[in-house]
C-alpha cells in the first residue's frame, strides 16, 4: 500500500502547512507562559515540530505492518511500546539538538517537571492521532481494494459467460454438417437420418452448457464421440480417432462441455489445415485422485507455420477452469514433432 501522505503532493502540502501552524502555535504558547528570548521560543517550536513532522510520516509503517492476527491485547501492547519509544526519542532528540545552541540554564526553564509532563501528553496525543488517521486510511483502502477485486471478478465472469455463449455454436461446423446431410439425402437417406439424430443430440447437449454444473466423464465422452462421428462423415478418411479410457474414470466428474473445445481445436488446426489424415487420440487416467485427460492430434507443421493464432477455444477452457476451481495450472499445452497435445487436470474434491 502506498504512503497516504507522501504519495500525494496535495496532501503532503496540507500536512506541511498544518505542521507550520502547529510550530507557530507552540512558540506562541511558550511566549505566553515563559518570559524568554525570541530565539529560544522559535527554536523550541521549530525543532520539536520538525521532528514530529518526520516521525509522524514514519508511524505509517508500524500501522501497515503490525501483525493484527495475534489478538487485540498483543496489538495494543505493540502500539503502546512503539508509542513510548517514539515519544521518548522525540523528547531526547529535541533536547539534544537545542543543547547545541543554548545554555543549560536557558533550557532548564522550558524543561522543568511540569513542562515535561505537558510535552509527553502532547507527544502521546499526536502519536495517537497519527495512528488513528493512518488506520482510517488503511481501512478505507482495503475496502476499496476489496470492492475493486470483486468488481473485476464480476466482469471476468460476465465476459466468460458471453464467450461461452458465443462459442456454443460453431457456425462453420453447423452449416457444413447441414450441407453434408443435404448431400446424404440424395445418395443415402438412412445415413442422412442418422446424421440428423447425432447432430440433434449434440446440439441438445451443448445447450446444457449454461447450467454451470459437473457431469460424469462418460457423458462428456459420449458427446465428444457424437461430435467426432459427425466430423468423420464430413471429412471421410481424413479424420480418425482412438480413445484409451479405463473404466475406473467413467464416473469421475468434470464441468459440462469442457472437452468439446479441445476436439474442435484439434479439428480446426489439424484436419482443416492438413491434406494428410489426422488422428485424434484421447487418453484418460486417474492421477493422485484427480482426473487427467489428454487429447493428442498430429498436424501439418508447415501449414500452421503460416497461420497465426491458436485456440480462442483453449483460452475459454482455461478461463472456465479458473472460475470453477480457482486454479490456473489445470490446462497444459504441448506442441512438438508435429503433434499437438492438450491435457486437462480436473480436481475431484473441491468441485462444486
Amino acid at each position, binding site marked *: 500500500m502506498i504512503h497516504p501522505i507522501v504519495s500525494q503532493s496535495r496532501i503532503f502540502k496540507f500536512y506541511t502547512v498544518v505542521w507550520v501552524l502547529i510550530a507557530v502555535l507552540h512558540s506562541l504558547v511558550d511566549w505566553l507562559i515563559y518570559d524568554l528570548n525570541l530565539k529560544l521560543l522559535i527554536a523550541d517550536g521549530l525543532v520539536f515540530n520538525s521532528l514530529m513532522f518526520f516521525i509522524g510520516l514514519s508511524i505509517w509503517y508500524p500501522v501497515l505492518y503490525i501483525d493484527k492476527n495475534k489478538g487485540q491485547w498483543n496489538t495494543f501492547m505493540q502500539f503502546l511500546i512503539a508509542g513510548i519509544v517514539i515519544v521518548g526519542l522525540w523528547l531526547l532528540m529535541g533536547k539534544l539538538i537545542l543543547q547545541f545552541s543554548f545554555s543549560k540554564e536557558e533550557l532548564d526553564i522550558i524543561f522543568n517537571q511540569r513542562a515535561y509532563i505537558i510535552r509527553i501528553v502532547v507527544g502521546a496525543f499526536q502519536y495517537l492521532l497519527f495512528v488513528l488517521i493512518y488506520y482510517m486510511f488503511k481501512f478505507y483502502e482495503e475496502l476499496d481494494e476489496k470492492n475493486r477485486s470483486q468488481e473485476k471478478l464480476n466482469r471476468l465472469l460476465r465476459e466468460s459467460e458471453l464467450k461461452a455463449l458465443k462459442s456454443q455454436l460453431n*457456425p*462453420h461446423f453447423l*452449416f*457444413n454438417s*447441414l*450441407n*453434408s*446431410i*443435404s*448431400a*446424404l439425402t*440424395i*445418395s443415402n437417406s438412412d445415413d442422412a437420418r442418422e446424421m440428423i439424430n447425432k447432430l440433434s443430440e449434440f446440439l441438445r447437449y451443448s445447450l446444457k452448457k449454461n447450467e454451470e454444473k459437473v457431469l460424469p466423464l462418460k457423458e462428456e465422452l459420449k458427446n465428444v464421440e457424437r461430435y467426432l462421428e459427425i466430423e468423420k*462423415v*464430413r*471429412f*471421410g478418411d*481424413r479424420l480418425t480417432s482412438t480413445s484409451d479410457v479405463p473404466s475406473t474414470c467413467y464416473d469421475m466428474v468434470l464441468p459440462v462441455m469442457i472437452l468439446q473445445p479441445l476436439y474442435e481445436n484439434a479439428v480446426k488446426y489439424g484436419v*482443416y*489445415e*492438413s*491434406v494428410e489424415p489426422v488422428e485424434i487420440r484421447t487418453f484418460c487416467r486417474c492421477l493422485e485422485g484427480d482426473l487427467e485427460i489428454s487429447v493428442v492430434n498430429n498436424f*501439418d507443421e*508447415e*501449414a500452421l*507455420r*503460416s*497461420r*497465426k493464432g491458436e485456440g480462442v477455444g483453449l483460452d475459454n477452457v482455461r478461463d472456465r477452469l479458473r472460475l470453477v476451481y480457482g486454479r490456473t495450472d489445470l490446462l497444459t499445452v504441448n506442441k512438438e514433432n508435429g503433434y499437438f497435445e492438450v491435457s486437462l487436470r480436473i480436481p475431484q474434491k473441491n468441485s462444486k
Partner: protein
Amino acid sequence: MSNIYRALIVDDEPLARNIIKSYLKRWENIEVVDECSNGFEALKSVKEYKPHLMFLDIQMPKVTGLELMEVIDDPVLVVFSTAYDQYALKAFELNAVDYLLKPFNEKRFGDAVKKLIQKLETGEKSNQQQINSIQEQSEEKLERIVVKKGNKLEVIPLEDILYIEAQDDYVMIYTSDAHFLKAKTMKYFEDHLPPENFIRIHRSYVVNVEKIKQLEPYNKDTQLAVISKDCKLKVSRTGYKKLKELLDF
C-alpha cells in the same frame, strides 16, 4: 447451346463435392472433368483440363479458395461455395459470378449455373479483377502469401520474407533462398502486411524489419539497410523516419 463446358469442383469435403456433382447431372452441356480436394490439386487440374468454370470452396487446407484465385491466370469463371465466411458479404457486394452459401438447394444452384452459362456465352472474361478487389478491400492482415512457381503453388510464411521489391506492375518477394513474382501492388502489401513487422523504407522496398542486421550511411541523405553481405537496400528519408519510430533508436 451446343457448346459443352468443362467444370471443375474444388472442395475438401467429399459430400460437398457430391452434392454439386449430382445437381450438375441435369445440365447436359456441363461436363465435370475433375474433382479436387485442395488448392494444389486444383492448380494442376486447371492446367491439365483448362476448365471453363469452377465451383470453389473457400476454407480448405493450406491454401484458401481466394488465395488460389490469386495465382490462377487461366480464364476460368468461379462460383464460390462456403458455409460461413467473413468474405461472403463482401463477395456479394462485389458481384463475383456467384456465391453459394452451404447448404444450398437445387434452384439456388441452378441460378448460379445460369449466370455462369450466360457469361460464357456472351464471352465475358474471368473474374480475376473482382477476386483481386475482394482481397484488396478486405482489411484483414495477411498471415501468409501464396504464389505460383512454375506450375506449383508455394505458401510463404511471413517470417520467411526478407523484403519485397517493386517491379512495374508486379512485385518480387525475396526469401533467403528464393524469389517469387506476384501480380500485386506495393500499396497492397504496404496496407496488408502487419505494420509492426513490415515497413516501406523506400519507393521500391517493403522490408521485414526483423531481417535488418544494421543500417549504414550511403550518402548525405540516405542510409542502407543491411540484410546480408550482398544485399543492401536503400532507405529514403521518410523510410528512415518510420524505421526510427518503430525500432525506437
